């Protein structure tokens, strides 16, 4: 009896201290019941090994519970699930903990956002939290990084990442590593100088800051005319990936500022529209690869970098792949940044392919103009923030592609702190002339294996599972499951509002569930 009591105390102590230690996140592939980091694992596969829901029985999938958010707004959250508790975010920066067995809220925390908060470049949304040890971390639209107690939602610490009055804000889920909380900022549309920060999870002390735009005299500064680097943009507004063995963080960077008029920033504008690999310990950039030099179409490269290993030309390689907003799918060596291959995965009219180093051969005459210039992909890209999925079972990279063009316009360049610094805009083609598809690409080559057509350019992330399924949603409000090998639709349900979110999977009491946000609600599905 005494021994049993002792064991109970020991166990409860173990769970109340360091509930999610770093090794638990690093080993998340072996523990698919939880969903411990934004993209499911550090490699950003958004893959669940759970297979209770599979090709044979997915047709019987039913809603388990539904949670309705407390405020209206676009719900783009990707939930985190830990030991029976789900952590979601509600627009603009609220964190709510839910009981995963019932959907009943356990606590909710809302920051005091000033009414004159500056959010230029996206709607006031949040895409999720990070968990580490006994804390939950969130970035807010007024530029704070906040650590909350996982049990109660009480604030452990609250730091200002940068000045919202100058346009810095956050929508991305932080990335929790061993002793590091990594967060990037939004704000290129307000002419910020982008950066990526690391904070000490215990104290909130900043450990390093790495700017995505070099200052005068630093390497890469020669790619900016005059002092244009000072308002160079290069936000780091979506969550990156991590390779524990190489201790490298992989993070995409956004557009140069101003977006649609490049006249004042001659040069390639490093490190905008790039993937950067940084040492997690000190933030030093090990390598970079720029997808779209001197971008004038707002084709941020913040998309999720997906890490996987494969043999290419007889050689085992550590790879990173990205379905870029510019409509090309890229595969790079993630140790060195060496370009290996790229191929269009959606319609593009701006480049005559790429050279041997992966630099695009840009077609002339497609810069934005006063009268408008029609270019594919569209202003919001062939991809955007919604996540792709990589299945280690099928070796396929799943991407919801947006088939759409935009008439791009050029405007005047005028910088004023905290105001839009964009110099132009766009009118996207819509209706029946715009569409989309879930595409399955051979991960090492980008070769199309199958596609499932969508009526509208999607804003859905994808989840692949050990049950041989790919889950996703539509702008018309469908949530669906496709056969991961063939793209055949196996199940769908109308949720009543557009899906603009990333799906996840988890298990509780031995049963598998799938979760997705749509409209003002979060839906959880399971087998009856």
């Amino acid at each position, binding site marked *: 009896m005494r021994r049993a009591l002792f064991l109970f105390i020991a166990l409860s102590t173990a769970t109340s201290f360091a509930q999610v230690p770093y090794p638990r996140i690093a080993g998340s592939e072996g523990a698919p019941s939880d969903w411990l980091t934004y993209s499911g694992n550090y490699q950003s596969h958004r893959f669940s090994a759970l297979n209770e829901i599979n090709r044979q029985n997915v047709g019987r999938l039913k809603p388990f519970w539904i949670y309705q958010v407390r405020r209206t707004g676009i719900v783009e959250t990707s939930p985190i699930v830990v030991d029976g508790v789900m952590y979601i975010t509600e627009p603009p920066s609220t964190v709510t903990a839910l009981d995963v067995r019932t959907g009943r809220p356990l606590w909710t925390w809302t920051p005091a956002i000033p009414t004159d908060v500056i959010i230029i470049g996206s709607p006031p949304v949040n895409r999720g939290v990070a968990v580490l040890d006994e804390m939950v971390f969130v970035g807010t639209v007024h530029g704070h990084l906040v650590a909350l107690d996982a049990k109660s939602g009480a604030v452990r610490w609250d730091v200002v990442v940068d000045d919202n009055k100058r346009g810095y804000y956050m929508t991305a889920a932080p990335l929790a590593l061993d002793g590091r909380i990594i967060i990037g900022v939004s704000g290129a549309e307000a002419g910020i100088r982008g950066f990526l920060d690391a904070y000490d999870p215990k104290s909130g002390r900043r450990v390093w800051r790495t700017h995505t735009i070099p200052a005068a005299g630093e390497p890469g500064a020669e790619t900016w005319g005059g002092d244009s680097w000072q308002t160079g943009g290069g936000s780091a507004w979506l969550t990156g990936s991590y390779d524990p063995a190489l201790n490298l963080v992989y993070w995409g960077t956004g557009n140069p500022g101003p977006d649609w008029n490049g006249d004042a920033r001659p040069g390639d504008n490093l490190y905008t529209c790039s993937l950067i690999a940084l040492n997690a310990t000190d933030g030093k950039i090990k390598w970079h690869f720029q997808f779209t030099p001197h971008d004038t179409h707002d084709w941020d490269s913040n998309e999720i970098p997906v890490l996987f290993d494969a043999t290419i030309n007889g050689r085992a390689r550590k790879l990173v792949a990205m379905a870029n907003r510019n409509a090309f799918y890229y595969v790079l060596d993630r140790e060195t940044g060496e370009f290996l291959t790229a191929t269009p995965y959606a319609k593009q009219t701006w480049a005559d392919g790429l050279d041997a180093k992966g630099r695009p051969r840009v077609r002339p005459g497609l810069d934005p103009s006063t*009268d408008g210039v029609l270019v594919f992909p569209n202003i919001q890209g062939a991809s955007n923030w919604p996540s792709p999925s990589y299945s280690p079972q099928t070796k396929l990279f799943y991407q919801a592609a947006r088939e759409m063009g935009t008439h791009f316009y050029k405007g*005047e360049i005028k910088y004023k702190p905290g105001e839009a610094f964009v*110099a132009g805009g766009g009118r996207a083609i*819509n209706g*029946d002339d715009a569409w989309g598809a879930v595409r399955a690409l051979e991960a090492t080559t980008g070769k199309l294996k199958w596609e499932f057509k969508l009526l509208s350019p999607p804003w859905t992330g994808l989840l692949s599972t050990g049950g041989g399924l790919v889950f996703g949603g*539509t702008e*018309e409000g469908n949530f669906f499951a496709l056969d991961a090998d063939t793209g055949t639709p196996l199940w769908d349900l109308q949720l009543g509002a557009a899906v603009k979110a990333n799906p996840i999977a988890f298990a509780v009491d031995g049963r598998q569930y799938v979760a997705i946000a749509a409209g003002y609600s979060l839906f959880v599905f399971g087998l009856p």
Partner: protein
Amino acid sequence: MSPIRLALVPFTFVSLLIATDMRPAAQTSQSAADIEQGKKLFQGMCARCHGLDGTGEEGPNLNRPTLTRAADDDALRAVIRDGIPDRGMPRVRRMTDGELDQLVAYVRSLGRTTLVATSGNSDRGGAIYARLGCASCHIIKGQGGSFGPDLTEIGAARGPSYLRQSFLGPAEMLPRGTAPIPGRGFTEYLPVRVTTTDGREVVGVRINEDPFTIQVRDTGNRFHSFRKSNVKDVEKQFGKSLMPSFRGRLTDAETEDLVAYLSSLRGAQ
């Protein structure tokens, strides 16, 4: 012109004058240049729907003193910045405040120009509308058939050239994104031919659609719902219309009379 509109015109001019007078002198002297710059922006971004000089096309004409959804400059700024969801008006993304002001200045200047005259006679046009049997498919002020679009306010929503085209060659001018359903700029009244796997065939117009289902009204105005898994083929007939073309069936004068009648349909005034 109705008495109410007559009353509104001087009021609007007064407000404009006050607004102009309250501006600092430096800005007042720029206003001609602002309007000129606004015109350039308009021709690039707005003219496709609102006509080159705001005379209206697929979108409403803007050369009138009061705009339905933009009573004042702030409301007009909001319409340009946010668009009109479900009504085909896209939001103009990320213009600077200066550019937005220039565009507003130009659109307001259009309100001081005269309306494009339709040479036709709207009373005679009304008689032609009745003679052609348009009311079998269209509602005006609650009267008529519901297969085609309600025309009660069509004169406020469309410019004369669009209206002319709409009955001379309706297939070339199907409405897009004017209604909340299907929305997002989709072609409305799109003719479809649905063939089910068990061999049934339904011809009608698409009401709504998603990747898994389609909703159709057939030519008898009956509603049909299909799951695409039970459908062999959905033939979307872009470039066709279930409305007959009246090209060659009306004289030029009759055509202008019908345009004048449709232009006069502006709902409750």
